[in-house]
């Protein structure tokens, strides 16, 4: 079997002669994934790039104020939202490594946002923020007698809320990862620092941070890449509104698809690639070692 398969599949005789039975099995076992990869990654990506080939699409995008707004929103989401989230996660990872039984229990609850699907909880937040019936404005009315603001009708507040929902969902995951980083640091170092009378900040600055900075930076980059694909937080909370002012790149593609402007949908994604691909390449190199 080895001979027939290799003779027909591989043109170079030296290679085929070296193919052993396990290697043939290796090819057979790898084939299903390669098929999936060709049919559902290579073909769609190629097709998408082909759809985005028209220069006019990019001119149209350039003149579309919603695209510019979405690009700015995406940048705010990534640069402010993610860095804030990772700083909080770094801080909370220090909290959750404390050995107290109540902190153990709290950490079990804390992981809930990550464990439950995002749709019901995002809708729950959306109802809380409803200007007439939402619990937040009900409480504001109860205590002050005034009507609360129409939260999701202000693009700045609405985007901030979408970032908040994103942070609520993914903060536990990153805290958990940074916790493992903290737990990997040798305890002797902290004991030695205590003997020397080091302050809390000195311990963080000279022990914790140097051993965690690579992990922290990797996590931040990874979170940025993944957040680019966070469709639910924006789409289900604000739907891109009011007046299409809170779109991010991931929801914009769907908006163009809805409007039957397929080439614009693809072009908007292609515009993001120069920023995304270097990050993706860097991460791939780091993890494939």
């Amino acid at each position: 079997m080895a001979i027939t398969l290799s003779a027909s599949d591989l043109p170079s005789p030296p290679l085929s002669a070296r193919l052993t039975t396990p290697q043939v099995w290796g090819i057979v076992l790898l084939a299903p994934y390669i098929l999936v990869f060709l049919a559902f990654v290579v073909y769609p990506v190629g097709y998408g790039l082909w759809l985005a080939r028209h220069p006019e699409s990019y001119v149209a995008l350039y003149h579309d104020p919603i695209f510019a707004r979405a690009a700015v929103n995406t940048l705010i989401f990534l640069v402010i939202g993610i860095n804030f989230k990772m700083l909080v996660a770094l801080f909370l990872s220090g909290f959750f490594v404390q050995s107290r039984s109540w902190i153990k229990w709290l950490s079990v609850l804390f992981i809930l946002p990550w464990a439950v699907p995002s749709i019901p909880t995002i809708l729950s937040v959306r109802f809380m923020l409803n200007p007439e019936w939402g619990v937040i404005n009900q409480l504001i009315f109860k205590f002050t007698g005034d009507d609360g603001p129409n939260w999701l009708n202000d693009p700045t507040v609405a985007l901030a809320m979408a970032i908040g929902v994103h942070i609520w969902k993914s903060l536990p995951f990153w805290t958990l990862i940074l916790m493992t980083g903290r737990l990997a640091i040798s305890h002797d170092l902290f004991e030695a620092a205590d003997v020397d009378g080091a302050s809390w900040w000195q311990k963080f600055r000279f022990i914790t941070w140097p051993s965690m900075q690579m992990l922290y930076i990797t996590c931040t980059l990874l979170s940025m890449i993944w957040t680019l694909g966070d469709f639910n937080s924006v789409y289900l909370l604000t739907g891109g509104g009011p007046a299409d002012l809170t779109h991010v790149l991931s929801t914009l593609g769907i908006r163009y698809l809805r409007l039957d402007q397929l080439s614009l949908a693809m072009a908007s994604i292609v515009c993001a690639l120069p920023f995304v691909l270097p990050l993706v390449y860097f991460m791939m190199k780091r993890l494939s070692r």
Partner: protein
Amino acid sequence: MKLPTLREVGTEAKLLLIGIPVFIWTMVPIYHMFLFAISPKEDAFSGKLWPAHPTLHNFHIVFYQEHYFLRDFWIQFWNSVVIAVATGALTLLIATAAAFSISRLRVPGGRAVMNLALFTYFIPAAFLAVPMYRTMGNYGLLNNHWSLILAMVTIASPYAIWVLKQASDKLPVELDEAATMDGATTLQLFRLVYVPLMMPSLVAVGTYAILLAWNEYLYAFLLLSKDTDITLPVALGNFLAADDSPWELLMTTGFIYALPPAAIYYAFKRYMVGGLTAGAVKS
């Protein structure tokens, strides 16, 4: 028993000062959902911390499909189950075979395939959604459960292969050599040595794929559209389209939908924590 010193009390107070806001922040959206689920319609908007007349009536309405929006609840629930289980099974099959081939059989080009898979893993899934939608249209799979299953397998398998490869690289080579020495064929090696030893990682990967498919909204809402074909999250999203959507029923359905993944997550936490934390980021 000795009394705590002032310093110890101060530390506890500081920890509580962090812990209490964290608890409130985490629980508010979930508790809000739960509160709606157990409130009768007229109580739901009262803004109280506990309803005056807690009831399970909403669950009754959902389970017996007694509302226009819920007429296909069970079939949508079933769709979600089928798609999640099929994604889990297919991902396991494809990823285990690929990891075995790359890591144990050292197939030529295996490293390149691993890199390509990792590349896919990092591309944001929403970027692939529009071309995937068109591709499924070209393949004639739109509105067919297979389109969602295959899309989910595509998204789940890179990470699955990577986690399994990392785990199987740790198995000693001597095992394979000993088994081959005893006359085991490659398939026997796979079935009798490799798979049993990889069980913990296989459980982690299978759970990951099932949860991924169960939780997916974007692809589900693009690829499926008929009321009897869609999954629960899409049905929940459709609630929003109407102005008069009954919030308490939406929250009840959402609560029911959120329970299985939460239960699975906590049941397999042991495996998930190992797989996820070690797997997601290597420091």
